[in-house]
């Protein structure tokens, strides 16, 4: 605190918001992230009003008029048209995506929807599961903790990406059937579930650690003395104190999940056609790298921008929500890294 103005009387959330807003870099990248969200949300608008085509609509043998001149969308040799900007009134703004002649801009916007949707859903599920597991393990200790901690450790020490890839391809081939839960092979739930299962330990382990520490605190003892049951203590007393950790990790997990999804989809084990994501778009683009490099680089740039902004905002949130806790969180991550586990969140385990 620089001591200018009065901090007295402000709530912790207001103080945190002020600290966050003071971090210029974070504010800029928060803006970038919001712009990306607006960009993908505007997909149907752009598709209907400007490009007048859908993400999967093919224009193989069509011609468009650019500045009064007729051009092939895909040349007879199979070369897709390059970026036209507003030359054709916004049609093929970024060119066509390959032999099929689909509108790259429209695909980029719809692909981003899938990427963000999968990333956010997977992070949300992983976070919710992690909160419950972390609370149970940290509060009850004993055998509950042993079982949960061992399971998390096992997942943690797996070659997560390889196994995720195997599951992805198994589901992409055959779909999934567990009792009433039935997923078809093309369902978006497949990548979402895979990613969330394999990323739970990243959040559950630090949460468990914090719950262990928090349940030693006086306020927990006081609650128990007043007759509060386990669920009241866990969800009413301890959970609110986890808010800042959860917010920070959730933000970082979205970035992580998006990278995971892109990796799976790039290899063909994530999002399946007719859906497309930035990851699947890169696969198409890499094949055409020689004739139209933008097709691989644009979706890659979008992923990078999204991940970078989420990582920076996540870091800034950590500083803002809990300035003294930074050391503590860092120490926890450090401990994870040292205990022979693996790397902290924010670092995708794929290359």
């Amino acid at each position, binding site marked *: 605190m620089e001591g200018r103005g009065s901090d007295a009387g402000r709530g912790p959330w207001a103080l945190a918001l002020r600290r966050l807003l003071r971090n210029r870099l974070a504010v800029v990248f928060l803006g970038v992230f919001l712009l990306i969200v607006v960009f993908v949300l505007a997909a149907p608008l752009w598709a209907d009003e400007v490009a007048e085509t859908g993400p999967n609509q093919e224009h193989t043998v069509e011609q468009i008029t650019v500045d009064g001149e007729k051009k092939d969308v895909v040349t007879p040799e199979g070369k897709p048209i390059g970026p036209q900007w507003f030359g054709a009134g916004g049609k093929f703004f970024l060119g066509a995506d390959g032999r099929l002649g689909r509108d790259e801009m429209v695909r980029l916007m719809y692909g981003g929807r899938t990427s963000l949707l999968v990333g956010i859903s997977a992070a949300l599920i992983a976070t919710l599961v992690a909160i419950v597991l972390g609370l149970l393990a940290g509060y009850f200790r004993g055998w509950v903790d042993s079982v949960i901690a061992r399971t998390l450790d*096992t997942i943690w*020490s*797996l*070659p997560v*990406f*390889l*196994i995720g*890839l*195997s*599951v992805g*391809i*198994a*589901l*992409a*081939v*055959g*779909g*999934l*059937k*567990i009792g009433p839960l*039935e997923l078809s092979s093309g369902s978006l739930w497949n990548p979402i579930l895979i990613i969330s299962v394999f990323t739970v330990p990243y959040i559950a382990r630090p949460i468990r650690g914090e719950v262990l520490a928090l349940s030693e605190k006086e306020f927990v003892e006081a609650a128990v003395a007043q007759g509060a049951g386990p669920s009241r203590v866990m969800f009413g007393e301890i959970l609110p104190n986890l808010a800042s950790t959860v917010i920070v990790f959730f933000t970082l997990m979205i970035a992580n999940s998006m*990278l995971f999804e*892109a*990796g799976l989809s*790039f*290899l*063909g*084990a994530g999002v399946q056609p007719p859906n497309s994501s930035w*990851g699947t778009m*890169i696969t198409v*683009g*890499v094949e055409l*790298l*020689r004739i139209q*490099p933008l097709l*691989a*680089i644009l979706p*890659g*740039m979008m*992923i*990078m921008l999204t*991940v*970078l902004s989420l*990582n*920076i905002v996540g870091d800034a949130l950590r500083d803002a929500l809990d300035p003294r806790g930074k050391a503590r969180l*860092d120490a926890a991550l*450090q*401990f994870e*890294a*040292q*205990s*022979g586990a*693996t*790397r902290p969140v*924010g*670092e*995708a*385990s*794929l*290359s």
Partner: protein
Amino acid sequence: MTRFIARRLVGMVAVLFAVSVIVFVVFMVLPKQNPAQSLAGKNATPLLVKNIEEEWGFDDPLPQQYLTMMKKVFTGELIQYEPRIPVSDRIVEGIPATFSLTIGAALIWLFFGLLLGYLSAIRAGGWLDRILTGVSIAGISIPVFLLGPVLIYVFANELEIFPNGQYVAFGEDPGEWLNHLILPWITLALLSIGFYSRVVRSNMLDVMNEDYVRTARAKGLSERQVMTRHVLRNSLIPVITLFGLDFGATIAGTAIITESIYSIDGIGLYAAEAVAKFELPPIMGVALYGAFFVVLMNMIVDVVYAYLDPRVRLGESASA
């Protein structure tokens, strides 16, 4: 120490068992489709599917099926069906390429990670530190599937300095081997450089607060001696751990994306091609092989770590 190693061995076997069960469940139990169909590949004949069904005993109870699968894995009878080649042969063939990719990338990321982290830590808070921190955050955020295409486009297609991928065996032509691997090495290393430099920096900053560093200064050592002999050395242990794990994981074929972007025919590319063809046996094989390596490396790293730092051995109950 013997007890520690024994415990770790037991843990290792347990994790490998868990992995094999997961692989079994994922491939044989969960999918709606007939697993024989998935094993046979996309364009299999009904006869082949029928044969596989009998060969794998899909009518048996599940535990028996699991044993059949494991027997195939251990006796090298896990086979990809089109063309009919044992999966283990293909994995062994892929090892030299994957190893070449890993070793070069690992040396690059270790060297630059340490260098940048060290420079960043001794100038903590200064402009150099800020620039390096920014660079490493950017490095961490550039996914391989962006960096790879960009490097290929710029250095292979436009400038034509380096070939665009492929792998040339070292024994065939060492010069070409190097030439073909430079771009993949950089691609694979950049992510880890960012990460390692951040780890080195924060470890060094922690160590700088230790009493023995003050003592070293007090007894008149130069700043450089303090930094290299005391601070850097003591902050290296966690880095060694991390390096062992990453090295193991990369050898295990986790550099799938790098290998497939640059068409380096190692284990990762083998897996990637199998994914594209929806062929399950190679993926099962690579997943099991990869898990074995990762878990083995985990164990070696733990033992080395315990050897270097007795506190781990003694307080082993803390985070077993």
